[in-house]
């Protein structure tokens, strides 16, 4: 088997979230170094998104024709109760998890946020990019001088289940006293989000560690030496929350998304209104 074929298979497995953390990190490094690999990964991601998008816009029809309603009512009754119990459990777990999230509306939180110089810089970068690319239909991957990046390790979380594909990877320097890179994601319905991955002498103010719903929507966190800042605008609140939570978990362990998380991202995206950019 040729090296090229192995690379292609690995790239497919990476996009599908099927690699181990170490394998995924290897592929992510290759993507960061090699524009050709990055473009291929973007094509694969958009292929997945397009297939799902097309499937989700199917013709309306009745899943259960009227004539079928009375069929096996007793069996249905029994099954539905079992499923309902399981579903209630799942919902309870989900609701409990959501409540553990601190959700702050617009107001005091945002005024504190605005006072942070490096955060303002990051916001300007995100907003300038979001406006400039608002009319571009993803995917169009722009890789800006990745060869000069100082980050020891570049990783690009997979958000294709949420309909978002990486369309920008660029270095960021002197953001406060931190350096790193930014991954810009785009969706087919106008969504643009930025994930900053930063290292260096800088801290995340406490209030940024709470989910901020406003303009922009923001969430920041850290794992070990790395700081992460997520910015979006006009995205449905629950969708931003789920993406933020997913990214925080992903950046903690860098493991492929669990099936239930992928399902949740897909459902959440399906039920969300397009982004108002």
């Amino acid at each position, binding site marked *: 088997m040729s090296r*090229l*074929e192995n690379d292609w*298979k690995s*790239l*497919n*497995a990476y996009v*599908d979230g*099927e690699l181990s953390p170490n394998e995924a990190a290897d592929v992510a490094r290759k993507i960061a170094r090699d524009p*050709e690999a990055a*473009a*291929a990964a*973007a*094509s694969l991601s*958009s*292929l997945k998104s*397009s*297939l*799902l998008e*097309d*499937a*989700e816009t*199917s*013709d309306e*029809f*009745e*899943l*259960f*024709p009227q004539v*079928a309603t009375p*069929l*096996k009512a007793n*069996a*249905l009754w*029994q*099954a*539905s109760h*079992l*499923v*309902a119990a*399981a*579903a209630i459990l*799942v919902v309870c777990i989900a609701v409990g998890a959501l409540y553990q999230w601190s959700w702050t509306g617009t107001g005091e939180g945002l005024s504190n946020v605005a006072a942070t110089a490096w955060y303002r810089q990051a916001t*300007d*970068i995100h907003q300038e990019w979001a406006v400039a690319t608002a009319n571009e*239909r993803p*995917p*169009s*991957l*722009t890789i*800006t*001088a990745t060869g*000069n990046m100082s980050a020891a390790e570049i990783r690009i979380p997979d958000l294709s289940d949420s309909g978002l594909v990486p369309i920008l990877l*660029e*270095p*960021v*320097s*002197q953001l406060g006293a931190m350096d790193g890179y930014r991954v810009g994601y785009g969706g087919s319905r106008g969504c643009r989000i930025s994930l900053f991955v930063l290292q260096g002498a800088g801290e995340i103010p406490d209030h940024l560690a709470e989910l901020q719903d406003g303009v922009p929507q923001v969430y920041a966190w850290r794992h070990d030496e790395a700081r992460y800042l997520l910015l979006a605008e006009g995205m449905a609140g629950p969708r931003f929350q789920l993406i933020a939570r997913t990214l925080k978990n992903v950046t903690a362990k860098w493991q492929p998304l669990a*099936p*239930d998380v992928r*399902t949740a991202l897909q459902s959440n995206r399906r039920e969300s209104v397009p982004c108002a950019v």
Partner: protein
Amino acid sequence: MDQRKRLESYRNRLYGYAVSLTQDPDLSRDLVQESALKALSAKNVPSDEPAFRAWLFRILRNAFLDHLRAANLLAGFMEEETEEPDQDVWTTEERMVDAITVRIAMAAMPASQRDIIALIDIAGLRYAEAAELLEIPVGTVMSRISRARQALLLRISDSNVTPMKIVHGGRRP
């Protein structure tokens, strides 16, 4: 969520998978409705979502295979696509991919390749789940999906030619 609502949440993806298999909207609707009714009347329904999803798409795929069997077309579907695309796969990377183009290219693909792509990308199965459903090793799923996507991207690149941008010169805030 009751069983009906749970099934309804998969309606579009079931239909998308069925269309990928059949390329026939009417037949796809029939197969999806038939599968939904089978699922609704089943006694042993998987409770966790990934298992439920794999189970549901297996029902649909079996319904499709039954349809082919009845029409004496099963052998053609089960033939594996062994031909390797002769183009360099990396040459397809600078192309735009959109839903319409993908749909057109998918329609021209062999059924077995449409099947594996739809199982992974529309049904959302993991490689292990697809391997179990297709009764093949996980490594074979990995090979098949990469080969099928390669063929699909090559078809797309023959019909859609908007290049992607690569810009040099980084931002320095």
